[in-house]
C-alpha cells in the first residue's frame, strides 16, 4: 500500500475512533429542547374525602413516643382544601425527546418521625438521591425498582447519610422500610425534567416546556393513572385539571 494511502487510512480511523470515544455513550442524540411554555396542573379528588387512617406505630418505642402527641396518619390519601389531592405525581409521558442533563443537586429523602419525607419523589435518571436518617432508630432503606438496580441498606445511626443514583428512567416504584412496615414512599425517574409532585394545594407546575403536543400523566398511589393531551405553542401557559373519583 502506498505510504500516503496508509497515512490517510490511519488518520481517518483515528478520527473516527476519537469521535466515537468522545461521545458520551449515548448515540449522538440532540440536546432535548426547552422553552418557556408552562402547564399548570391541578389534581383534585371529587366527592367526600375518605377518613384519615391512623397508623399504628407501637412496634417501635421511638416511633410510638414521637406519635403519642402527634398521631401519624396514612400518607396514602392526603386531601387538602377543596379536594386538593396531595402527593400525586404529574409528568410528561409523551411529546419530548432528546437528552436532558441530570442535575447534580441531590433530591433528599428523609426518614424522620418514622415516615418518609417526601412521600412521592420525581427525579431525573442519573440525579443523586441523598437518603438521610433523622431518627435515633434503625430504618432500612429498601427501594424496589425493576429497571434500575435496587438496594437494601441498614441505617441504624441518627444522622447517617448516603447517596445513591438510579441511572435509568423508570416508572413509579415502591420504597419501603422493612423494620417499620407502615413506611412507604414512591419514586419515579425520568429522562427529562418535566415532572412534579402535587403540593398542599394539589398543584404542579410543569415549566420550561417547548412548543408541542404532550401527553400529561397523573399518577396517584390509590386512585391510579390518568392521561390528558395538551398542545402548547411557544411561551403559552395552559391549565389542566385531573379529577379522581373518591
Amino acid at each position, binding site marked *: 500500500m502506498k505510504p500516503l494511502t496508509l497515512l490517510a487510512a490511519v488518520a481517518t480511523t483515528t478520527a473516527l475512533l476519537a469521535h466515537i470515544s468522545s461521545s458520551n455513550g449515548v448515540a449522538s442524540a440532540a440536546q432535548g429542547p426547552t422553552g418557556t411554555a408552562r402547564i399548570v396542573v391541578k389534581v383534585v379528588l371529587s366527592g367526600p374525602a375518605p377518613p384519615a387512617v391512623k397508623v399504628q406505630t407501637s412496634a417501635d418505642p421511638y416511633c410510638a413516643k414521637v406519635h403519642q402527641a402527634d398521631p401519624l396518619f396514612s400518607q396514602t390519601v392526603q386531601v387538602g382544601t377543596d379536594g386538593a389531592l396531595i402527593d400525586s405525581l404529574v409528568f410528561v409521558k409523551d411529546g419530548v425527546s432528546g437528552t436532558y442533563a441530570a442535575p447534580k443537586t441531590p433530591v433528599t429523602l428523609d426518614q424522620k418521625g418514622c415516615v418518609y419525607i417526601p412521600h412521592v419523589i420525581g427525579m431525573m435518571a442519573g440525579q443523586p438521591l441523598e437518603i438521610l436518617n433523622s431518627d435515633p432508630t434503625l430504618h432500612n432503606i429498601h427501594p424496589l425498582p425493576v429497571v434500575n438496580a435496587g438496594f*437494601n*441498606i441498614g441505617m*441504624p445511626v441518627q444522622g447517617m447519610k448516603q447517596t445513591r443514583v438510579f441511572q435509568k428512567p423508570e416508572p413509579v416504584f415502591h420504597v419501603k422500610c422493612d423494620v417499620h412496615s407502615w413506611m412507604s414512599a414512591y419514586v419515579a425517574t425520568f429522562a427529562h425534567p418535566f415532572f412534579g409532585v402535587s403540593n398542599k394545594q394539589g398543584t404542579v407546575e410543569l415549566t420550561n416546556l417547548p412548543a408541542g403536543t404532550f401527553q400529561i400523566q397523573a399518577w396517584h398511589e390509590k386512585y391510579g393513572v390518568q392521561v390528558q393531551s395538551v398542545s402548547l405553542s411557544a411561551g403559552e401557559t395552559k391549565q389542566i385539571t385531573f379529577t379522581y373519583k373518591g
Partner: protein
Amino acid sequence: MSSKLTKRLSVGSALCVVMWTLPASAADEPPSPRRGADVYRRYCITCHGERGDGAGEFAPYTTPKPRDFRQGTFKWRSTPSGSLPLVSDLERTIRDGVYWTVMPSFFPLNERVRRDVIAYIQTFSPRWTSDQPGMPLQIPPEPAHTPDSVAKGRAVYEKQNCAQCHGDRGAGDGPAAKTLTDDWGNPTVPFDLTKGYMKGGTTGADLYRVFMTGLNGTPMPSFVESIAPGEAWDLVHYIQSLSASQRAHSNQQVKP
C-alpha cells in the same frame, strides 16, 4: 496383515483413543448453557420451575420458596446490596446447599455440572447481560474468638439495632418480625440466630457476608455503611455465641 502394519494400526488406534479422551487444550471448556439445560431439567426443575420462576411442582410445599431466577436477585453473595452475585457465589450456593431449606448440596456432582447449570440459569434474567456484578466484599482475617470479642459484638448488635427484627436474644422475635415480606410479597421471618447452623454457609466468613452485603430480595439489609470491618468479626462471634450448639462456634466448615 503384515506385523508392521498391525503395529502401526495398534499404535495409531491407541493414540486416537488417548487423544480423544485428552482435553483439546489446557484451559477448561467454557460453561455451556446447552449442557446446563440438561442439568437443570434433571436436578432443578421440580423446585425452580421450567421457566426458572421458582414456581416448580414442589414450590407450594416448601418455605422458603425456591429462588426465582428471572430478576437476577440472589441472597447469598459477596457483592454489594442490589448487585448481581459473582459466578463463584452461585457456585458456592449450589455446591454447599442452603441449610434449613430444601436446596440440596450438590457437592457430589462434577464441578463442570455446576458451571454449566449456572450458565443456563443466567439465561433466565436479562440482567446478566445488562449489568455487571459489583466489587466483591473484602473480608479481613478473623481475629481471635475471645469472650472480649463476643462482648464487643454484643455492643455492635445493640448499636445496629438488630433486635428490631431478630429479637434481643436472636430468636427472631423482634417487634418488626411479624410484618416482614420479601420482594415477591411473600411473608417471611427473620432468621432465628439460635438455631446453630446459618443458612448461607456454616463458616464465620459466610455470616460476615450476610450482614455486610445483605440478602437481596429479603428484608435483611446490608450494614456495610454502618459497621466497620473491625467490628464485623466481633458481631460474627457474638451471633455464633447465641446458639447453644457447639457447631456454631466452630469455624470449621461443616459440610453436608
